[in-house]
């Protein structure tokens, strides 16, 4: 089964004698081509949820399947490989490597897998063209605006052609105009390449781009009644 599935996933943190429930029996399924948003107040467990979806954190209970593979069965080196090949992360700002220019930000991901081919370079340039950075491929992160950095991160998330795209507050440090552009780019990438995508966000205005919106409240994930407008 493609995409990402949570089956009754819980996450507890030890807090002295008591246990703190960061995720409570969460079930969700995101299929290829679906762009899902998760909203919720601070401390409700959104990042915890995304970390588990991104194979960075093991759940205390329940199962997480990514492309039909149960994460429980994987060792840490296999988890790293799965993240490399199946998951594209778009994190908050300054998640670029400072000493690599825009093109190398993408190619380093290829390098993690092995070697860089001419085809990889061509594809990286195509992706950068798509996010509007075709003329900035040799710029370093400190020469880019916040929005340009996020575009680079988006292109990077797609370079390995993963099945899953995860974004944690990708617009946190951008003004609303930039934020719309960024989410639109993610949405376009997800749709045209048929990815299963989850975005955590605070900004309700961005939800128009998403197919489904879930709300996290004290570790409980619920589909929101009011469906957002279908995107344009």
């Amino acid at each position, binding site marked *: 089964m493609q995409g990402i599935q949570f089956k009754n996933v819980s996450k507890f943190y030890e807090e002295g004698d008591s246990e703190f429930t960061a995720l409570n029996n969460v079930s969700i399924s995101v299929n290829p081509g679906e762009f899902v948003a998760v909203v919720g107040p601070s401390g409700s467990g*959104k*990042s915890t949820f*995304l*970390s588990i979806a*991104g194979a*960075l*954190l093991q759940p205390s209970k329940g199962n997480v399947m990514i492309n039909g593979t149960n994460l429980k069965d994987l060792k840490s*080196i296999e988890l*790293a*490989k*799965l*993240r*490399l*090949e199946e*998951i*594209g*992360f778009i*994190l*908050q*700002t*300054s*998640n670029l*490597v*400072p*000493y*690599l220019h825009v093109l*190398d930000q993408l*190619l*380093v*991901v290829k*390098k*993690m897998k092995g070697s860089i081919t001419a085809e990889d370079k061509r594809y990286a340039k195509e992706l950068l063209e798509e996010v509007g950075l075709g003329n900035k491929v040799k710029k*370093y992160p400190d020469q880019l605006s916040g929005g340009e950095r996020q575009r680079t991160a988006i292109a*990077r*998330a797609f370079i*390995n052609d993963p099945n899953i795209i995860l974004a*944690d*507050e990708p617009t*946190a*440090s951008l003004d609303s105009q930039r934020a719309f552009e960024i989410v639109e780019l993610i949405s376009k990438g997800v749709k045209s390449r048929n990815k299963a995508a989850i975005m955590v966000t605070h900004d309700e205005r961005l939800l128009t781009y998403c197919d489904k919106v879930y709300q996290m409240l004290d570790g409980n994930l619920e589909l929101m009644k009011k469906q957002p407008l279908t995107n344009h």
Partner: protein
Amino acid sequence: MFLALKELKHAKLRFFMIGMILVLISWLVFILSGLGNGLSSLSASSFKKMDAEFVVFEEGSRHSMLRSVISDDMTKDLKALPNVEDAAPMGYRSAVVLKENVTSDDEKIDVSLLGIHPGSFLEPEVIEGHSLEKGKNTEVIVNDSLKNQGIHIGDTLEIEGSTEVITVVGFVKNESFNHLPAILMTMDHWRTIHFAAPGSDMGINNPVNAIMLQGKQINPDEVNQAIEGIETTTKKEAINGIPGYTAENGTIMMMLAFLMAISAVVITVFFYVLTLQKSNQFGIMKAIGASNAFLGRAVVSQVFLLAVVSIGFGILLTYGTAAILPDEMPFALDLKLVFSYAIVLLIVSVLSSLFSVRKITKIDPLQAIGRIE
């Protein structure tokens, strides 16, 4: 290599500074090794070069030529022992020589007089002139460093405190003993000089200081048991018995060891701090799928590259220094020695980077999520 090179290029100044430290350290290491090598050959080259495996001293002399007097008559007994392939005696004394008819004190030369049997395996090849000959007792062959003091073949030298004169008939290379250039002469003539005072030979027939043995299979204990009143040691121990040799060598080795330790600490600290600074960056790379091996390789290859380049510059500088050092300096660069210290430095550097690698393996990719830096 990908990350390593890109970062080196991007943060040139930072890596240039640590590179400079490495250049200076390796430069000092090579200079010291050259100095150590020069000193030890000055102190013992005649011993080091001789083609013998064991040395026989008088019992109780604690491996010192100065304290040992034994009889040359033993030589034939020693030769007869099992495993002994050949044996040849040597005598040593220090002396001050002076070109004949020169009175100025400035022209006095400190030397080591070494007595040997002409034609024995202890006689070095001459690079100029001719070798010692039996019966021609006043003829000597001398270390070619004496050329700098204006000594030529055919010159006659007086020995201070003795009426004997000697004539230079040949030059040899790299023969010095106890920090002084060697003059090699026949054993008979050496004896007349060394035991000039009546009774100074303590009644020993044909006295010499030591007898060198050839034969890899020799068991020193067996030799000691076979012949009364002697102690047999390896050549290495005999070299250590040369006055000052162990102290000198020990000091230089200690300095070298300190330098290695310093370079290890410098590299460890520098890259560890760098790794701590970049820990968030490594966390992000891990989150997007970088393995520990990938990131570890980046650090190790960075240190490797930096060390290779810096040590290379260190070697260049060392040979540059060697070219301008005065000839009298006991400085002898040995390519093999330089190379082995270079390898040791490189290994030390790379091992030091492993601390950072360990740190990297402990960085949790989770820290990349849910943070604004």
